[in-house]
């Protein structure tokens, strides 16, 4: 079985973001990057399937600037077999359909049985790339899976709202987008980090793949104005606790 896992590298969401000079994204300098949380579940699911079946080959792919190699290396250390870096310094400004067409163009003649992606990225939150890949490749797709089982055929649980899930059976080839809590992503062990250094990491220039024009334009990128309704308390921890207790006594009936 051939599996493709698509991952994105995103900044730590607790970063202090600065808006870039073009006002269309954040300034990428001085940020700590990691694998998009949803994509870690995608990697883990692929690796668990490889552990379950004898003949599984996992390619992990990321579109982005040079730094995304770090994310790919971690995925290799988690158990993927080979990595593809689609190098694109401008990927931050590409829309979901452009990213998806690069991935679909790369995949079209590779006959992947399962393509795993995250349900969404933490920075863009568009929740589109996986679904669009399936549309472009004309294969089935189940989004937001919270449970995966392989038993000659695939059974997944798709998470809906309010604690409800739908149970779905689907054949390969299929795109599955992964939701939080699908599994517990492993930490790479030192021996696996060493082994990963010998695995193939191939870089392809995005210009070698066909992509479309962007379908939308970012006019502005900004911090929303604070409503002013929230009182921010800062300073010495012990004094903060006293202040908070005073306010709770004044404003609520709980103390």
């Amino acid at each position, binding site marked *: 079985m051939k599996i493709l896992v698509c991952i994105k590298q995103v900044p730590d969401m607790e970063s202090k973001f600065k808006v870039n000079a073009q006002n269309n994204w954040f300034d990428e300098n001085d940020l700590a990057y990691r694998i998009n949380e949803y994509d870690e579940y995608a990697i883990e699911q692929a690796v668990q399937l490889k552990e379950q079946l004898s003949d599984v080959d996992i390619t992990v792919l990321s579109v982005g600037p040079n730094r995304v190699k770090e994310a790919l290396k971690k995925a290799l250390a988690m158990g993927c077999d080979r990595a593809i870096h689609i190098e694109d310094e401008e990927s931050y400004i590409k829309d979901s359909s452009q990213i998806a067409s690069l991935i679909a163009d790369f995949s079209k003649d590779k006959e992947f049985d399962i393509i795993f992606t995250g349900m969404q990225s933490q920075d863009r939150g568009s929740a589109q790339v996986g679904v669009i890949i399936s549309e472009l490749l004309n294969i*089935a797709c189940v989004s937001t899976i919270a449970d995966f089982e392989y038993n000659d055929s695939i059974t997944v649980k798709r998470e809906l709202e309010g604690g409800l899930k739908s149970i779905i059976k689907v054949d390969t080839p299929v795109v599955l987008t992964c939701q939080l809590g699908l599994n517990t992503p492993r930490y790479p062990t030192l021996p696996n980090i060493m082994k990963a250094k010998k695995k193939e990491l191939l870089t392809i220039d995005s210009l070698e793949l066909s992509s479309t024009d962007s*379908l*939308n334009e970012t006019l502005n990128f900004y911090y*929303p104005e604070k409503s002013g309704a929230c009182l921010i308390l800062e300073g010495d921890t012990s004094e*903060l606790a006293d202040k908070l207790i005073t306010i709770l006594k004044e404003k609520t009936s709980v103390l």
Partner: protein
Amino acid sequence: MKLLLVGEYRENKLLDVTYDLIGFADKLESEKVMVAIGYESDVPKFDGKLYLADANELGEYNPSTHKQLILDVIEKENPDLIVFIHSSFGWDLAPRVATSLKATQLTEVVEYKDNSFIVPSCNSKLRRELKSKTSKTVITIQAGAFTPLYDSVGVPEIENISISTTSDINFVGYEKAEEKGLDLTKAEIIVTAGRGVGKKDNIPIIQALADKFGGELGASRPVADNEWVDQSHQVGTTGQTVSPKLYVACGVSGAIQHLAGMKKSEFIVAINTDKDAPISEVADILVVADVLQFVPILTNKLS
């Protein structure tokens, strides 16, 4: 601008969020045209046209047939904007419809102004303002971002529609969450542990504060997913919706899906090291502090 709204049903019932779509159309002063895969026994109230396909026949979740059906209505109506709710139904179908139309899709729209759309970014910390470059645009709107319109007068003119295509997935059925062991909806005080609490070993610190208040322990999703706290404590879209007198969010960033479950609390205190954490959008007080230092001191002082 002409809109096509995509309504939502689940388990034989119209979903309430469908009225968010009607409210959105009303805000844009657009004629109201809706397409839905649902049941004639329960149709939304609005003054306009409803293209209704039978969910008994087509299935409540069937992306390939639903996509084709929506595309057929788009061809008939030629709308400029196709509007879904940002829900498990909407985010699954919107990109399929947009790709077929070669149209752009803008996800989780929270605001509309002069032909541009505002969407959240970086876990709701920042906002992006976007303009579509295609003649048709597909959007999903964030539930609760636009005032729902429940009481528009009139009943929709219904046109029944159908389609015969096969599906590439096989819907087996629904699975309901286990009976909840804990009912947080009646709690007067909830102290919630978020991922900022760091690890399972630190949960007793948060539990001690909850106990001191005589309240219940809540959890954000990663805390429940990681099994630091039982899933029945989870607050949010996929957890419980609560409205206590006091909600204390400890190391919770304030993602939309968490806010959806707790923003109706009477008084909200957030404890977070990050002054920009989006939880401040709903909190009355944001204490900028490390929970592991602050919470024990607070618990102590409360006695």
